[in-house]
């Protein structure tokens, strides 16, 4: 790994948002292509995810790394760029943790990684009412609806939402991706979702695959 890339890697893994922002600013000021320059940041946040899976990182470290990643994203892809950001966008995503479920962490990671890969993400937060998902889908017509459920008691609401989208006649216009600790590919199939991913990085891979399909 080159020295600048190593520096980026360390800043993300240390969860140092301040330093990460400075490094991102240097890249922007040097006139580099932000999409290409993003690669070492993505490698670093994926490494943080792997360390979490291996029990070397815990939630606080992972969240700090995600915040550092977000700091870089804010500098390299400022939302004020408007149209140019849309041109960069691979696709649009509306994401949220489903009604009754207050868990945000997994969904936040998915949003951070999707943003990192050039998706435009609208994060509705946690405990999002089914009506709100329907309303936002009608209004923004996103490419993807990403639904998280961390509880066995709330995952059924993923099914209820898909039923509501069908009732409204807007189901076919959007690809529904589901995830969360108790969710499986069998469940995704059973409720008629377009896909399931077991973790944040595979959620990104799935979204890209479905977009290219």
């Amino acid at each position, binding site marked *: 790994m080159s020295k600048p890339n190593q520096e980026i890697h360390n800043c993300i893994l240390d969860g140092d948002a301040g330093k990460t922002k400075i490094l991102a600013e240097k890249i922007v000021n040097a006139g580099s292509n932000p999409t290409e320059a993003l690669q070492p940041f993505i490698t670093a946040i994926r490494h943080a995810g792997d360390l979490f899976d*291996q*029990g*070397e990182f*815990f*939630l*606080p*470290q992972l*969240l700090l790394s995600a*915040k550092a990643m977000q700091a870089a994203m804010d500098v390299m892809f400022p939302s004020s760029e408007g149209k140019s950001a849309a041109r960069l966008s691979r696709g649009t995503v509306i994401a949220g943790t*489903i*009604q*009754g*479920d*207050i868990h945000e962490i997994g969904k936040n990671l998915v949003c951070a990684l999707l943003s990192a890969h050039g998706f435009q993400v609208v994060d509705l937060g946690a*405990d999002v009412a089914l009506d709100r998902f329907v309303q936002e889908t009608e209004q923004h017509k996103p490419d993807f609806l990403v639904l998280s459920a961390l*509880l*066995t*008691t*709330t*995952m*059924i*609401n993923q099914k*209820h939402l898909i039923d509501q989208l069908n009732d409204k006649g807007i189901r076919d216009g959007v690809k529904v991706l589901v995830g969360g600790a*108790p*969710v*499986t590919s*069998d*469940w995704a199939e*059973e409720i008629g979702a377009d896909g399931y991913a077991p973790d944040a990085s595979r959620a990104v891979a799935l979204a890209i695959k479905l977009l290219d399909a």
Partner: protein
Amino acid sequence: MKEQIADRILHTPPLLFDGAIGSRLIGMGLPAGQAPEAWILSQADKIRQVHEEYTQAGANVITTCSFGGNRIRLKKGSLDRKCDAINRRAVEIAKEASQGKTYIAGGMGPTGEFFQPHGLLTEESADKTFIEQAGILADCSIDFFLLETHYDLKEALISLNACRKTAPSIPVAVTMTFNSTPNGFFTVMGDSAVEALKTLSDNGAFLVGSNCTLEAEGMVKLAKYLVTEIDTPLLIQPNAGTPEITPDGVVYPQKADEFAQSAQQILSSGVHAFGGCCGSDATHISALRVLIDKNFR
């Protein structure tokens, strides 16, 4: 008159706690995503039935249906204004079902929020909300507090201290939920199981332990490890297996006999108290009753 819980816990046979409330209520029709506390005021008969099932199954402890009864958590279901009534009624219902046959544990769970900078929770707001809930439960004459499923030592300590200062004469039990990692057992926030439980014990918990998350094999391993490291009496409350999705809904796969097999190993390790968490019902608690009676004849 019952022996004080803090004395009783030191003797054999181990105390038998009850099983799950939330998953049992879902089986009885509680809608997905709705807090069990919502039923305290509207469907008291169903909550009472669950407590009665556990009392009849031979549990020594009934836990009030107030796990999510703190104001921060209740607010998620727009129930925060009913905080006082919900907690009071939760104790009443448990007592109606128990008829004096069991100890009554005042159940308290975490807020479900993360502390700043990861979330919005502050120490002051956590302290305030736990003091409020502990005060109401204490006012209803419970035998002890049972703080369950904590995933952050910091929050567990705030809750423990809130109980201690609100009602110094009421003992406090605390269980945390741990994950198995290649480096040992930790909370998701990175608190090591032994360090966390020792800290809770040093801060006055008379009973500490683990509930939820781990499957049977992991819980057996954790229990065997904890008894060698922790001097304070231990409470272990595993789930009835890892939940599976079936066309009929979410199913916890461990039936009572299988649950009892792993329980046997945990009891043999020398824990002082045992019960069930998610997915367990009266059949599991009955099986544990038989097991304890057989082991400590």
